[in-house]
């Protein structure tokens, strides 16, 4: 049995039973990375010796069997800080920078027996939907090397899809976990905003960013959430309250659950194949005993426009610190301080990041703030209200994760607006701060995965995961990218 192909839940069970060791799993993962990294380019940093070494010492001590994650490796999107490791955020501007501290989520993972593995590729500062904005080149979709893995957590999704990882962490600001999970045929979960501490996640848009897992099953996502979530004294926006056992109700099935389908929002359009896949799933879900109701989300279609004002405004400020003064890249040509700033940032940032900083700076400028930023905040509250109303009628809203299966590398990179629209169904969820999970729901004629996402009530990941798990069983997606 190739252990790297197994899910987290299964490996944990086997490890607890003493059937396998962390070293066994790490060895299989390393072998897969060595075999596939050249083609897929998933990792920005991968230290196989360190991974094996850590797995070996855990195995020798035997302590791993008393921890929830049993010494299993977790790959980390390279915008999450790991102590003493380089962190690039897919950008040249952080050249040479190593984080002096662990992100809270990394601390939590370590505490619960995970081994922190390699750092995965992403669009620069998580800005993008294909990993093509990475300064270090795109990751390939394991299902088709000509296709994008989605983004920005494309490396994390591809790693799990290609069995180069058991699980990985992504970050989701406008769909950056769910859309690549959908493109790569894996499960991607964005918890409620504030569920997982953002401390140590390099901020793109602070009011939207949320860390979440990419896994091979809904159950694996639940296990990950169990160790990732919780209030953090270092993150003022993290949410108080007890963290339930997300795995407890997983197998309660479809019965008694109500799914809401926002027909008005679906009219924004999608590929015919996506629509077919989605509609069939809705029918199936209903046939298997769940209630399906129409809900209305009249403001969701404005979410993309609203998002690109709010996210870019916050980004323009969040990315101001990358200036060549303290760390990372600094221009050679630094004769005066302002010229130094300009040249450093011109050399260090890629086109998409510059575009967003410019847009964000513009919408916050005197005379424009009210028309853009304030207006966008109003729209945001309307989107929040849409969901709140929808959730009065259903336990979870159901939407395609993306309007198309994976697109080709190069296909949209020259047209930012077209690229932005690939997140049309994921963005509203971030604006509303709700939990959302994408699961694979089939393959296109070209053998590219479809994904459907479920959107739960605030902090009710348990019900959400129960529903997603039931649909997952129903779909029974067993395809693999490799023969």
């Amino acid at each position, binding site marked *: 049995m190739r252990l790297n192909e197994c899910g987290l839940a299964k490996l944990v069970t086997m490890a607890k039973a003493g059937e396998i060791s962390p070293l066994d799993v790490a060895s299989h993962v390393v072998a897969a990375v060595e075999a596939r990294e050249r083609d897929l380019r998933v990792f920005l940093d991968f230290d196989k010796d360190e991974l094996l070494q850590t797995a070996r010492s855990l195995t020798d001590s035997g302590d791993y069997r008393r921890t929830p994650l049993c010494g299993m490796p977790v790959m980390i999107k390279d915008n999450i800080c790991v102590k003493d490791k380089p*962190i690039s955020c897919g950008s040249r501007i952080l050249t040479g920078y190593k984080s*002096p*501290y662990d992100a809270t989520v990394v601390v939590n993972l370590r505490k619960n027996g995970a081994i922190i593995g390699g750092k995965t590729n992403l669009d620069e500062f998580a800005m993008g939907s294909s990993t093509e904005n990475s300064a270090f080149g795109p990751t390939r979709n394991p299902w088709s090397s000509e296709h994008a893995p989605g983004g920005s957590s494309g490396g994390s999704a591809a790693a799990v899809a290609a069995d180069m990882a058991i699980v990985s962490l992504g970050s989701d600001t406008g769909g950056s976990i769910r859309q690549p999970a959908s493109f790569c045929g894996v499960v991607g979960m964005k918890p409620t905003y504030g569920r997982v501490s953002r*401390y140590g996640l390099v901020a793109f848009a*602070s009011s939207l960013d949320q860390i979440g897992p990419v896994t091979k099953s809904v159950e694996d996502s639940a296990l990950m959430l169990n160790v990732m979530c919780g209030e953090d004294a270092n*993150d003022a926006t993290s949410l108080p309250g007890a963290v339930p056992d997300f795995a407890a109700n997983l197998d309660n099935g479809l019965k008694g659950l109500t799914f809401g389908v926002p027909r008005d929002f679906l009219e924004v359009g999608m590929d015919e194949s996506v629509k077919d896949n989605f509609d069939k799933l809705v029918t199936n879900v209903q046939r298997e005993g769940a209630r399906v109701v129409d809900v209305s989300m009249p403001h969701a279609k404005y979410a993309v426009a609203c998002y690109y004002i709010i996210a870019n405004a916050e980004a*323009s*400020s969040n990315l101001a610190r990358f200036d060549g003064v303290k760390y990372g890249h600094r221009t050679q040509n630094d004769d005066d301080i302002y010229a130094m700033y300009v040249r450093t940032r011109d050399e260090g940032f890629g086109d998409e990041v510059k575009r967003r900083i410019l847009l964000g700076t513009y919408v916050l400028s005197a005379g424009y703030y009210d028309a853009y930023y304030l207006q966008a905040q109003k729209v945001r509250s309307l989107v929040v209200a849409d969901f709140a109303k929808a959730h009065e009628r259903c336990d979870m809203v159901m939407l395609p994760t993306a309007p198309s299966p994976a697109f080709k590398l190069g296909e949209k990179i020259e047209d930012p607006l077209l690229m932005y629209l690939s997140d049309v169904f994921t963005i509203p969820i971030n604006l509303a701060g709700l939990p959302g999970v994408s699961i694979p729901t089939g393959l296109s004629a070209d053998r590219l995965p479809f994904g459907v996402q479920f959107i739960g009530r605030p902090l009710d990941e348990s019900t959400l995961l129960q529903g997603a798990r039931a649909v997952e069983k129903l779909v029974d997606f067993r395809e693999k990218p490799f023969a």
Partner: protein
Amino acid sequence: MPSFETIIGLEVHAQLQTKSKMFCGCSTRFGSAPNTQVCPVCLGLPGALPVVNVKAVEAAVKMGLATGCTVARRSVFARKNYFYPDCPKNYQISQYEHPLCSNGFLHVEGGEKRIGITRVHLEEDAGKLIHLEGDDHSYADMNRVGVPLIEIVSEPDIRSPRQAASYMQKLRTIVRYLEICDGNMEEGSLRCDVNVSLRKKGSDKFGTKTEVKNLNSFKAVEQALEFEIERQARLLGEGRKIQQDTLLWDSVKGESQIMRSKEEAHDYRYFPEPDLLVLDIPESLIQRVDTEIPELPDAKLDRFVSDLGLPKYDAEVLTSSREIAGYFEATAKELGDAKAVSNWVMGEVLRELKDKKIDISQFKILPRQLAALIAEVQSGGINMPTAKDVFRDMAGTGNEAKDIIEKKGLKQISDEGALDAVVVSVLDNYPQEVAKYLAGKDKLLKFLVGQVMKETRGKAHPQKATDLLKEALEKRRGS
């Protein structure tokens, strides 16, 4: 030159004396080795997030309550965006649209002048840039980054440089009373920018204002304003317009220079800080902080005047420091004669503190001891010049007045028999002076009294010595 009215508003920054910084756990200690009090949060390292220091919030609420402000139950932190190497995130976390405190006031000029306070809000301090002579690099010390500040913005109610300095002094007194800021302007824990404009007398429209920055003493506030008012008056007098510039005061040269023009003014692109929640202030916090506010200088002054019968001037001097006022009050309570104590505290005590550059907590004479010394004078045990010598001895040694008087044999000689003998010998020793006095040179009496004091090594009761001398001289006139 037409007569102008001066309109002044002040923006004062006060560093709060919290143990840790505004948004992280680093120490706020002043004077440590550069970059030793820093962490990922205050350095703005990638991924770090701010967390509000509740102690700083309480200090700001205290200031708000002490200056009659309304404390907002919900206020909002905002980012002020600008690029400068003293600001590691390239934005400062401050408050903008919804400040913590607003609509307050304070009084200056003995309660005659009320100056409105627009707002008191919380923010974080920037770092310090160090430029060394002959070195083409600049260095940054980030120890100060993130130290909590309150910014106190006044209404444009101030009408003269003198008034501006009084306002500033009053603010310092208040923050010291509240023990939220040490008020040390040299170390920069209290800093001030001024806005100033002129308008024709009788006009109700404001003229174009300029801002003068970098005023780190009361003198600088006054001088910079005088300089700027004169400059604006000259320009207006010549029929020219005032440009809305920001100026930098150079206290060495005694002049200000334009730092940036309106065109170069920053657009700070304020927006609500998404890393922090709305700052909720529970009513219970406001109530608790309110109980922690000590008697403030104005109330104390009133009480010193009405209850202790002090002249207003005395009360004003004594209440300018909470510690001095406390020392005075304790001493007055011991002695039961407030005015006598006030004279001593305002004279000898303050002089001693100034000479030795110490504050009252380091002063060796306890209130009880000072009261005992004054009592010695009042009972005639020693005379005033002797008392001042004893005071200096006490200030150095901390010994009791009684012991010093005894040990040094300083007890006043009031005994007429003993003094008589001295008087006779002085008159015998200075026959020429006696003759001149008797011929009408009254002034020589003082000389003769001096000789008596000299003979008794200062211990003679001055009045008694004078009386006895006069008596003896009159006798000689008759003989």
